[in-house]
């Protein structure tokens, strides 16, 4: 382990801006991509469900009704 202290680690020998700037942006982008990708599926499912309801193919409308009556 070559770091004397945590503060030395964060200073990165004076290159903090460059190193953490690189890592920060990279992980920010990765996080953003993950959020977008995972949200996209939920949105797609919601959109498709709305679409199925609109074209009246939603068999589940009936199942729901049955479940309520139970």
């Amino acid at each position, binding site marked *: 382990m*070559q770091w004397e202290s945590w503060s030395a680690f964060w200073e990165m020998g004076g290159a903090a801006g460059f190193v953490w700037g*690189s890592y920060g942006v990279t992980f920010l982008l990765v996080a953003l991509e993950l959020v977008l990708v995972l949200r996209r599926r939920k949105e797609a*499912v919601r959109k498709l469900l709305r679409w199925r309801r609109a074209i009246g*193919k939603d068999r589940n409308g009936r199942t729901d009704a049955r479940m309520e009556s139970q």
Partner: protein
Amino acid sequence: MTPSDRGRSLFRFAAPQVFYPLAGRLAPWFAALAAVLTLAGLWLGFFVAPTDATQGEVYRVIFIHVPAAWMSMFIYLIMAFWAAVGLVMNTRLSFIMSQALAPTGAMFCFVALWTGALWGKPTWGAYWVWDARLTSQLLLLFLYLGFIALTRAIEDPRRADRAGAIIALVGAVNVPIIYFSVQWWNTLHQGASVSLTKAPSMATTMLAGMLVMALAAWAYTIAVVLWRVRPMILERERHTEWVGALLDQESTERGGRA
């Protein structure tokens, strides 16, 4: 032929139906692998690898810079490969794959540029020089953006698939041409005042960190692409019965939870 037979023969794309659940099952494993490898790579990079004699600590950017640069190039090749498969075999899944790869490739491309620029300022004194490798990386970003912009601009998915495939292939033919032309262009003007190959010979721990991070990038890419492919499959196969059944199930689950 009975009506129901006909209904089934209407939509006979078996592959997506198989691939969809498979992707859903595999993706978390790759994501976990990526997380573990990233942690290992960061530990190697920050706590095991020694300070560089000439550059000091700045060089630690290398652990994302190089894997990102590699990934951006690999991903373009894979993208073009799937595009070609799609055009030849006329399978929708291949087109979907190539479109799902593009954003991640563009992301890595941008990361390589960004980290390189931040690295360049302390080492070369400028964020950017028109070096051959840098320039071809920039053009690669444009190729990615063009592909994404084109496929997004076309609403009809079938047309978007094919048009995107054509531009991906044309781009793939051009990547080597660009690379060599840029190299030649640059060496004609200025002696290699800056050159990446002059980078310090690496300690083995550095190399190990870099390789582990590259593997992490691979695992991450696979996970993200599998996740991105799933909703794309759903949207395109929405007329099929299996998607219908799946959606019904999904909405019951939601209804049940509510």
